């Protein structure tokens, strides 16, 4: 059984922030000339006076957002992950993270789904970078339901946050009753043999992988970690204790992201054998979404296959 498809997070982004702005006059949208892609155009239609086209100039956009935040406004950023994180990284560091200003770095086109753009646009290390930055909350929603919840949380939270949003429709993990809590971990499948920890839109594929593994007699415990920082250390320790074996899975480099964070926490708190599935220190080429997931080992069958191998099972 595979999880059903949900809506694209970018649609949810445009709609939810526009909706939040109905009740919150502080909310503004700063767009780096990609509003028709990130769907900031939905916000623009609803609130033309609070939509600011900043042109193809991301360093200035992030700096201007910081200045607007000091005026009591709540800027949301519309650009792609690579142009929200690495292009203006020093602006994010000096003008947003260091002063703790209330800017929401809502970056679209996270992970492999970028409309076949290739490695200039596919950033593999954004989570590692942002989580290492003091003062930066880092959130990777699993699906459209959680993305909307995270955006609502972000508008209410005072301070900087990095929120990683996916371009295309992905599988839906949660139902409408789901409530996001910062720093939480969500057990999405109970099992006894191995703990699979995942984040972002990779989690639904890990749930599907767990179903495949069940057919081979492997009972996987699946934990979704939406917040990479602050990390749900207690819940991860508990999940590690439950099975004694941990494998992390992420649509991101295994260096310093979810896998790194989990390995750090467990080596300090409860030394446990941890393997990390994800991008193995490589850049990603362009290609259709499903093809990329297969090539880079992130589709449900490929995840299941790697888990089997790591656990020493024959396929």
């Amino acid at each position: 059984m595979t999880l059903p498809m949900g809506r694209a997070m970018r649609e949810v982004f445009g709609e939810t922030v526009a909706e939040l702005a109905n009740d919150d006059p502080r909310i503004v949208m700063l767009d780096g000339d990609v509003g028709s892609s990130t769907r900031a155009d939905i916000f623009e239609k609803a609130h033309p006076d609070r939509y600011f086209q900043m042109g193809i100039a991301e360093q200035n956009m992030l700096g201007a957002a910081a200045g607007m935040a000091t005026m009591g406004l709540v800027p949301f950023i519309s650009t792609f992950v690579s142009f929200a994180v690495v292009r203006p990284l020093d602006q994010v560091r000096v003008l947003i993270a260091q002063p703790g200003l209330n800017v929401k770095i809502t970056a679209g086109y996270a992970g492999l789904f970028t409309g076949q753009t290739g490695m200039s646009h596919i950033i593999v290390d954004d989570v590692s970078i942002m989580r290492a930055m003091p003062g930066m909350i880092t959130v990777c929603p699993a699906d459209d339901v959680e993305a909307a919840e995270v955006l609502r949380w972000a508008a209410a939270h005072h301070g900087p946050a990095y929120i990683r949003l996916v371009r295309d429709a992905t599988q839906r993990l949660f139902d409408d009753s789901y409530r996001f809590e910062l720093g939480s971990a969500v057990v999405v499948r109970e099992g006894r043999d191995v703990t699979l920890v995942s984040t972002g839109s990779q989690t639904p594929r890990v749930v599907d992988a767990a179903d495949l593994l069940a057919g081979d007699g492997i009972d996987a415990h699946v934990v979704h970690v939406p917040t990479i920082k602050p990390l749900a250390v207690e819940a991860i320790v508990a999940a590690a204790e439950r099975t004694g074996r941990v494998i992390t899975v992420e649509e991101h480099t295994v260096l310093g992201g979810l896998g790194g964070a989990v390995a750090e926490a467990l080596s300090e708190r409860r030394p446990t054998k941890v393997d990390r599935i994800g991008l193995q220190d490589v850049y990603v080429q362009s290609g259709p979404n499903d093809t990329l997931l297969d090539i880079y080992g992130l589709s449900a069958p490929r995840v299941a296959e790697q888990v089997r191998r790591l656990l020493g099972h024959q396929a």
Partner: protein
Amino acid sequence: MSADIPPAAVDAAEIARLEEIARRIRVEVVRAVNIARAGHLGGPLSAADMLAALYFRILRIRPDEPDWPDRDRFVLSKGHASIGLYAAMALRGYFPLEELATFDAANSRLQGHPDMTRLPGLDMSSGSLGMGISAAMGMALGARLTRRDVRAYVMLGDGECQEGEVWEAAMAASRYGLDNLIAIVDHNKLQQYGWPGNGPDGRMPPQAPGELVAKWSAFGWRVLEVDGHTMEDVVDVLEEAGHGDGRPTVVISHTVKGKGVSFMEGHYFWHTRAIKPDEFAIAMADLGEPIPATNGGGR
């Protein structure tokens, strides 16, 4: 032009008052850098007159209410001139003058480069060059959106104008017609090291003559020029700059790096350098505060 106290007329007495404040800023800059054995000198000294005029006449601020929402904003984009800003703020009453002695020290509110989380009255952290103008541009845009009569002032270095972000911000500010945004370029004709050439001490100025005027004009800004060490003109140009014409305004302030201290003026290597005891005595004498020779050392 405080919102609370009607400004004095720009008569000779007012100019003399502001000139004396600028002199005292320079004295405090040299003292604090001498105590710290660290920090920058050339940039704060070139900017002192402009800072005096801003903090004692132009900015609508309340030192006893630093977070007053309707205050004018000031961003020191050339954050390495921090001690000049701190001296102006201390003299204006934001914090005790004695605190200047903690400049650059551990746990001080007066960090090497401005940290807004530590010192009330700083409208933005800065230090990584090119960024302050973006923040100020955002403040000006935010003031307009929230319908507040707030001006955002930002001071840049001329070397800083080599940063690409400055021109990103210039384009965006022009596009939005932010005439409540006023940039001041402290055009002291030297940067930390500069290109080799036949300029002073074998280094070239950051720009060719006229280059800054041409560039800012081309980016759609109203450009005003001033001799940044003639107080009457500084006051005039800042008052003119405050009355927008639909465009953002830049004041190109022609200054001398290290202004006021004979042996520092016009030398790039006084951008940042520790002062020796005999040099300190000369500097203080140059600035009209001669000290006993036995009292000239740092801590």
